[in-house]
Each structure stands twice: as C-alpha cells, then as structure tokens.
C-alpha cells in the first residue's frame, strides 16, 4: 500500500509538471478545423513554420465543419478553418464571424471499388454518377456528420433530384472522412471524399478514384475570424495574426509546398 501511494503521488507530481509547463508557455490559440486539413497532414506541415515565425502555438481541434463552427459559436475556439460555403455564410449571418478568406482549394472526388457496380469510373459528372449509383443500388457510404463533405454530398443528391436516405444500400455512418473511407474500403462501397484525405489515406484496399473534374466538386477552404464583440474571450490579436499569415506570402508558400506521394494536396489561392 505504501508503495502504491508513493507511486500515485509520484505520478501526480509528474502529471502536474507538464500541465504547468504548458500553461506557462507563450501564447497559444485554439483552431477549430475541418478534419481534412489535419488528417491529411497539412497542419502538421505548416503550423511549425507559423509558430517559428511568430512564437504563437496553435492547438488544433480537428472536427467536421459543422462541429467546428458550433465549437466556435460557443466561444470555445479562437479561429476556424472550414470548407462549407453555405454553413459558413450562416455562421457569419448569425454574427459569430467577421472576416472570411479563402486560403486554398482542392477538389472532391468519388471513389469506389475496382469492380465498379454502378459503372461510374472515368466519369466527370458527379450528379450523373449519383443517379447511376441510385439506379444500380450500389453500396454508398455517407458521412452523415454535418461536415463540409457531407453537406456537399447532400447538395449533389438534391441536384440529382433523388433522396437516398433510408435505402438499405445507403450507409449513413455518422463519422469523419477517414472513418467513411475505412467503411467504404471494408464494404466495397462508393463514397465522396476530399482529395487531401484521399491522398494521405493509408488503407485504400480496393478503392480507386472514379469520378473527378466536375466544377461542382471544387473544394474551397476558408479561414474565418470571430467577432470580438460577440466573443470577447477569444485571443483576437493572435488569431488575426494567424489568419494574416495563412493568406500572406509565407503561409501560402507553406501550403503549396506540402506534397505527398508527388501530389500537391492543397492549392494556395488567397487573394492578396
């Protein structure tokens, strides 16, 4: 018992040390971001560059766009980086955000099993592909998590004039992009993914790229600064510095320099 108590006390001491050290360190901001910019490795690549330049540390909460905006709306994040134009417009209209700027783009693509049951491989029309999937009752994995990708998928079904909800081939998994890709790989199903997550995903199994190149599949990433009147607790100055850096020369160069397997994952396109 004595040894156990000693061990626990020691552990508590060890626990307290890093916690204290973290809080004593220089300024930190909390970034609520979409999962794709984190899971794809982009943030891990660019954040050290920013921290080195400014001394500001960025803590990343990787959530879906819907959850990231909700977290910021509660005042629990200092800045957001997301990719759902409609949800962003609502967020700003509700008075939470003041300044939205595009920092990069890539595209979405439809991936599916090599067997291609709906015969969509090689197509460039996302809506036509969804119609073919619906007609063939081909297994389809939906994020179902109010993320930016999920919102786009719902818009595409709407554009196709179809409602797949409730069909037994339509699997609403309620998870992140990686979880959806794992599910699609496991069930030999089709899914919609952003290119960043797709390139960096390491468990593709039988999944291959099938539909891309549709203008409807453009994926833009925006940084949004929060309204300091509505959210007085946030670290406004440091968050603004981060946003400026992202759209500035250095940040844009860092984003463009991130490549994986010879591919550029995010194309910087901030307007100066």
């Amino acid at each position, binding site marked *: 018992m004595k040894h156990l108590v000693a061990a626990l006390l020691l552990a508590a001491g060890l626990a307290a040390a*890093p*916690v204290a050290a973290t809080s004593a360190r220089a300024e930190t901001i909390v970034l609520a971001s979409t999962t794709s910019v984190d*899971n794809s490795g982009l943030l891990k690549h660019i954040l050290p560059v920013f921290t080195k330049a400014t001394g500001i540390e960025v803590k990343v909460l990787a959530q879906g766009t819907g959850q990231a905006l909700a977290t910021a709306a509660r005042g629990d994040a200092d800045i957001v980086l997301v990719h759902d134009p409609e949800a962003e417009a609502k967020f700003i209209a509700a008075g939470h955000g003041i300044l939205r700027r595009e920092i990069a783009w890539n595209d979405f693509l439809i991936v599916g099993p090599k067997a291609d049951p709906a015969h969509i491989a090689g197509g460039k029309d996302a809506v036509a592909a969804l119609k073919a999937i619906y007609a063939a009752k081909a297994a389809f994995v939906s994020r179902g998590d109010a993320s930016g990708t999920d919102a786009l998928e719902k818009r595409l079904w709407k554009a196709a004039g179809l409602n797949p909800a409730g069909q037994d081939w339509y699997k609403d998994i309620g998870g992140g992009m*990686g979880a959806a890709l794992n599910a699609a790989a496991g069930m030999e199903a089709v899914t919609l993914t952003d290119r960043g997550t797709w390139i960096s995903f390491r468990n593709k199994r039988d999944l291959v790229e099938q539909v891309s190149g549709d203008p409807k599949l453009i994926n833009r990433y925006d940084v949004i600064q929060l309204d300091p009147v509505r959210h007085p607790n946030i670290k406004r100055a440091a968050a603004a510095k981060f946003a400026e850096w992202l759209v500035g020369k250095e940040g844009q160069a860092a984003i463009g320099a991130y490549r994986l397997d010879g591919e550029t994952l995010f194309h910087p396109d901030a307007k100066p």
Partner: protein
Amino acid sequence: MWHSEFAYDPAADGMDQFGPIVGLSLTVSLSAALVAAVLGLGLAALLALTRFPGRRVLVVAVNALLGLPPVVVGLLLYLLLSHGGPLGGLGLLFTPGAMVAAQAILATPIVAALAHRVLEADWVEYGRALQASGASRWQALWPLLGMGRRALATAVLAGFGRTVSEVGAVLVVGGNIAGHTRTMTTAIALETSKGNLALALALGMVLIGISVAVSATVLVLGGQPERKRI
C-alpha cells in the same frame, strides 16, 4: 499498397508521437485514479463507518453510478467547462485538467463502491472491538484501512483500469489535440480513421499490455488472504 506500408516515414505516420502519447495517457489516468482514490476512499469510509439520513440512498446511488456512460459524462462536463457554461471561467476545456476531471468522475464511484464493501465488512467484524479499545470512529479507520489494504488497492487499480481505457469522455473534453490532449485511446481512434493501422495497432498493444497488467495485479492482490491484525 505494400510499398507504402514498408517505406515508412515515422514522422509522417506519427510514430514520433508514440512516447509523448503514452506518457500523457499515463499521467492523466494516474492523476485521475489518484483523485478517485482520495474521493472514493473518503466516501467509502463515510458510508461504512457512519450512519446518517439518506445513507442507504447514497449507497445505492454510488453503485448505480458504476456504469456511467463516459461520452455522456464528457458531454455534461463539456457544457460546464465551455466558455458559455457555468465553469467556463476556469479555462479548463481542451486541457489535460479537464480530462483528469472527467476520468476522476468515472472512476470515483468504482473506488467508492468496491472500498465500501471492504470497509463495511471489516467494520461489522472489528468495529466493536476497536471502539472497545478506546478508538473513536475515525481513529478506527486507520487500522481498518491497514487491514483491507490489498482489497482497497484492488479498488484503486480497478478505477485506474477504467480511466486508462476510456475514450468517450476525454475525446469530448480534451479535443484530441496533438501534443496536448492526445491520449492512447483517442490516438487509436484517430490513426484508425486515417487508415494508419500500424500506429493504431502499436498503441493498442501498449494499452492492452497495461490493461492486462492491471487486471493481473488486481487478481494477485485479491487472491491472497488478508493478514488481519488489530
């Protein structure tokens, strides 16, 4: 496929984070177990050695809370600690402190319920003798703790077992922030979602190792007869 698994860049795949993740997991969970040990043993002593109105209700409540769903505890604590919430001013959300609090809430009923059974049995058996030898209720607590030390240590270890393997609550209140609040369990969930099964599995092995070691210790401690002395 194969070549990407073997042409391995540890930094790109997060292997470089292995040590810090295991370290943070253990410090958070051990701290939570320590808090749960203090609160749980205190509560158990109160329930076993004293009689007050509502005591039976409290005993039932403590036992009912054994199976608290972690993700709900996480959600409630999130609402409390959020900037808009009543404890938002503490600035604990998305810090290891919030994770310790969440896990301590989950583990305290376990320690309290298990320790209560031990202390109550010993109190029924030896309480009268201890009081006859001139000890007050609270002076009698120390010999009781000594007598039941193995079983009580088991209770604390069971609490630790709960904290270290828990994912739902720490994910919600910690936010799974790399280098700050990423534990073994939240890292396993994340790496699995990235298709990075090698790191997920490696962390899983460590977690299983810890869990097996804790269970084995509980078994060994629990299986040996207590040497009862007054």
